[in-house]
């Protein structure tokens, strides 16, 4: 490995250059080393001195002073080594075993991605990045071929090393401090483990060499900031945090976007005052996210697009044509607007969920001159849930600073009621013969609610046991007493589900009724979440009612009445969506007693098939809103034993289905008909089926076809709704009738597999 040491010098031969070169000779084996002195308009004895040294010392003579960068470049161009060490003339190697300094500089290059080493890697304020200081730096020669020589724009000097070091890192090279341990700063000295002394700025502070160094340094700092420091360039004197895709995110900014990530509903997101778009770092992986960030500043939007892609546009919030979004984010924006308080309420009209922050009780001037509103608190923003971000980034229900150093974190969701007194609620559990399986779990989950119901009624349609005599129930009843939840067991007449529910409507004296099956377990905040959605006009609210055995996601599920025969309900699946209006509800939900005057359909059989669909859809038809709030979660175990629908007589189900069909006609609902294809078999069978797909599309139209497949990628470009086999099983139960091999077997099939698929589906 050949090394070229390049020393630019400008006068100071006797007091700087000679001691420097003496120390090189003393502590370096020069066999594979050349030393190039690039004399930069020297008027002293530099030329004679260097020429007197002989090999391996070489002189590059520049008659005039051409500046540090040019002089150094001239030395680099003359160098023949594989590695080049740039050394200032005001350094002296300190006492060491020979070549220690070269070994220290060289060792990191065993890693081929290292481009520069040096004794000090320190921060550049103007550039906002760390860099190797070139008073002593070893550089791989290939690096100059890739990114060029030192930039001569820096003239006399100062900043060229920062610039080169950053360019090397951008090109993918590492810059390494040797030794790696941090140097310690002692007054104006940096004391480290590298055996070198650097006087520092010996030439530039010599008025005989350089005049106006302060101005030069300032000008060069400006160049660096323009090139590399987007916070300096775009931050507009602390008005905004300008953070790029690789930059560290400060704690408060990190906290508020992490909080946003957890609280966002839906996928269509608008961020107002998005600055450099770094919030998108926290939101980009939301499935199917449709994000738009707006900011008034063209520069910061250009930067955002460069960093995070085409998700941003320049816009003035007061002139912006909003439209509708699932979530709007407005972090530290409202205080910049004279109408910020009104804007907070206005934004609610354009979204399902609004997430906003403002500095809490900020003293005027604390955060610069840009704020129009000061001393903001929760009183200025009615109709929000609030909490606080402390200075270090922690979220707290209460503030600990009242001077603008805390952030007020605000969340609003449509269909949530803020600051209303809790309505009265009766929990109702119709039950039959599940006394010793799931019923105790259901009761226990009622007791453990974060918001307790006022009363629990058990409607016993089964054996009518006196549960007070049963130990487990005596414990449960004692606990209900202790929790101040009244309770009552009512024996019903054995007429089944619809009659039991109707009985509960007649008996309940509360404003709301919470119906729960006897094989359900409501998670602790279920009632709290459901009640959070009961604004005026809402008749019923249901949450997720999930069978833990089943798939957790469905792209098909629907609570529209015309999709009822899909047999797949949104409440059965996890969802990130906001509370929304639906046509009907399933199983467990709360409903307003006042909205139940139409009553349950008592013409249904005792199994009460589709009783809740009829009950809630008729409620909707009477003008009440029916809501699905996915935040509320109840587990439904579908206990195969017992239960109020416990009847094996298929004719009861058929009777109820017929009743329901008549209701659909009465309501004027035309159910959507889907052509369901289920390919629960091998890839070859999928391919064979795909041959008939054009004919299937011609017959049924793409939008009416549902493909349940094992290999979705085979149909990815067809524009047809595909679902998993697990989803198909939820919809159809037994899939045997969709097995093409059984179909062929039953028919003693003699022609092709493709023809069999035609026979099945066309």
């Amino acid at each position: 490995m050949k090394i070229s040491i390049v020393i630019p010098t400008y006068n100071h031969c006797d007091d700087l250059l000679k001691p420097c070169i003496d120390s090189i000779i003393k502590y370096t084996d020069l066999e594979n080393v050349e030393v190039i002195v690039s004399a930069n308009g020297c008027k002293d004895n530099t030329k004679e001195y260097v020429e007197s040294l002989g090999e391996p010392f070489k002189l590059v003579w520049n008659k005039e002073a051409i500046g540090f960068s040019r002089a150094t470049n001239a030395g680099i161009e003359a160098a023949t080594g594989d590695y080049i060490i740039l050394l200032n003339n005001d350094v002296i190697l300190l006492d060491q075993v020979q070549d220690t300094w070269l070994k220290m500089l060289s060792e990191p290059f065993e890693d081929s991605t290292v481009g520069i080493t040096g004794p000090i890697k320190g921060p550049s304020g103007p550039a906002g990045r760390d860099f190797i200081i070139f008073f002593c730096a070893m550089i791989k020669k290939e690096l100059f071929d890739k990114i060029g020589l030192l930039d001569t724009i820096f003239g006399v000097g100062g900043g060229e090393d920062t610039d080169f070091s950053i360019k090397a890192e951008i090109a993918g090279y590492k810059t390494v401090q040797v030794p790696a341990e941090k140097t310690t700063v002692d007054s104006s000295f940096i004391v480290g483990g590298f055996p070198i002394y650097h006087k520092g700025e010996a030439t530039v502070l010599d008025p005989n060499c350089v005049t106006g160094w302060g101005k030069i340094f300032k000008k060069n700092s400006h160049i660096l900031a323009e090139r590399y420091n987007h916070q300096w360039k775009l931050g507009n004197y602390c008005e905004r945090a300008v953070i790029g895709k690789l930059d560290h995110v400060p704690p408060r900014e990190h906290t508020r976007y992490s909080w946003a990530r957890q609280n966002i509903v839906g996928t269509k997101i608008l961020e107002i005052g998005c600055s450099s778009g770094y919030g998108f770092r926290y939101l980009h992986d939301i499935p199917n996210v449709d994000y738009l960030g707006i900011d008034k500043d063209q520069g910061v939007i250009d930067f955002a697009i460069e960093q995070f892609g085409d998700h941003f546009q320049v816009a003035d919030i007061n002139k912006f044509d909003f439209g509708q979004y699932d979530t709007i984010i407005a972090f530290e924006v409202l205080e910049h607007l004279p109408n910020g308080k009104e804007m907070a309420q206005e934004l609610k009209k354009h979204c399902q969920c609004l997430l906003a922050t403002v500095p809490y009780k900020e003293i005027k001037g604390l955060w610069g001159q840009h704020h129009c509103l000061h001393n903001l608190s929760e009183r200025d923003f009615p109709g929000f849930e609030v909490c606080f971000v402390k200075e270090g980034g922690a979220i707290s229900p209460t503030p600990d600073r009242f001077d603008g150093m805390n952030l007020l974190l605000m969340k609003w969701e449509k269909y949530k009621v803020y600051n209303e007194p809790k309505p009265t609620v009766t929990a109702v559990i119709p039950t039959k013969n599940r006394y010793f399986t799931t019923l105790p779990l259901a009761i226990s989950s009622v007791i453990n609610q974060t918001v307790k119901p006022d009363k629990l009624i058990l409607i016993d349609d089964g054996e009518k046991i006196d549960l007070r005599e049963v130990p487990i129930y005596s414990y449960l009843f004692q606990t209900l007493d202790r929790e101040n939840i009244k309770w009552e067991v009512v024996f019903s007449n054995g007429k089944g589900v619809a009659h039991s529910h109707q009985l509960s409507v007649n008996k309940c004296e509360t404003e709301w009724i919470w119906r729960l099956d006897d094989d359900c377990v409501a998670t602790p905040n279920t009632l709290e979440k459901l009640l959070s959605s009961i604004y005026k006009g809402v008749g019923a609210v249901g949450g997720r009612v999930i069978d833990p055995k089943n798939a957790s996601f469905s792209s098909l599920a629907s609570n529209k009445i015309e999709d009822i025969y899909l047999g797949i309900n949104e409440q059965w699946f996890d969802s990130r969506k906001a509370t929304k209006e639906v046509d009907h509800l399933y199983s467990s939900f709360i409903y307003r007693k006042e909205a139940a005057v139409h009553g349950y359909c008592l013409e249904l059989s005792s199994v009460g098939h589709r009783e809740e669909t009829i009950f809630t859809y008729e409620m909707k038809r009477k003008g009440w809103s029916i809501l699905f709030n996915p935040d509320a979660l109840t587990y439904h175990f579908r206990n195969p034993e017992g239960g109020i629908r416990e009847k094996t007589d298929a004719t009861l189900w058929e009777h109820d289905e017929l009743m329901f069909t008549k209701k659909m006609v009465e309501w004027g609902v035309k159910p959507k008909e889907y052509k369901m294809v289920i390919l629960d078999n091998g890839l070859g069978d999928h391919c064979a089926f795909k041959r008939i797909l054009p004919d299937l599309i011609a017959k049924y139209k793409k939008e009416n076809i549902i493909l349940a497949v094992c290999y979705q990628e085979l149909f990815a470009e067809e524009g047809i709704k595909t679902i998993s086999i697990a989803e198909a099983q939820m919809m159809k139960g037994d899939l045997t009738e969709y097995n093409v091999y059984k179909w062929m077997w039953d028919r003693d099939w003699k022609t092709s597999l493709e023809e069999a698929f035609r026979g099945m589906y066309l």
Partner: protein
Amino acid sequence: MNIIISPYSRQLRNGNNNPKNYPYWQKLIKLLKACNHTIIQIGCKDEVVFEDVDEVKFNLSLKDLAVLLQECDTWIGVDNFFQHFASLYNKPGIVIFGKSNPDIFGYKTNTNILKDKANLRNKPFDIWEAEEFNKNVFPYAEEVLQIFKTR
């Protein structure tokens, strides 16, 4: 010619050799190589790679498999998914059948080689786990080569 070979049908749940797997691939590959053909073996990882194949492409995505299919001149396989896949791209090839019926599971656009109809299963739609492997139901490599040359 560039020839794709798709030598294996899916692994059976009981671990037995799938009765649809052709037993004379190694010989057939040597014969094809002697005719200066380039052989590309496709399949799944952990399947046995035959000697003398020029390239092995396992676990390709369907997209990559389609590209490969379009780039090759023809293909030879057993009664497995690949004949169905190739039919989607109208690329004819040779399928070596043993006990399964080409009238049901094959395509007329391909050259379907069946040694003897008498070997066909009585219950053509039963699971393959219920079937024994029998190499005698397949044609020899020389016969397959002869058909390959004359098609």
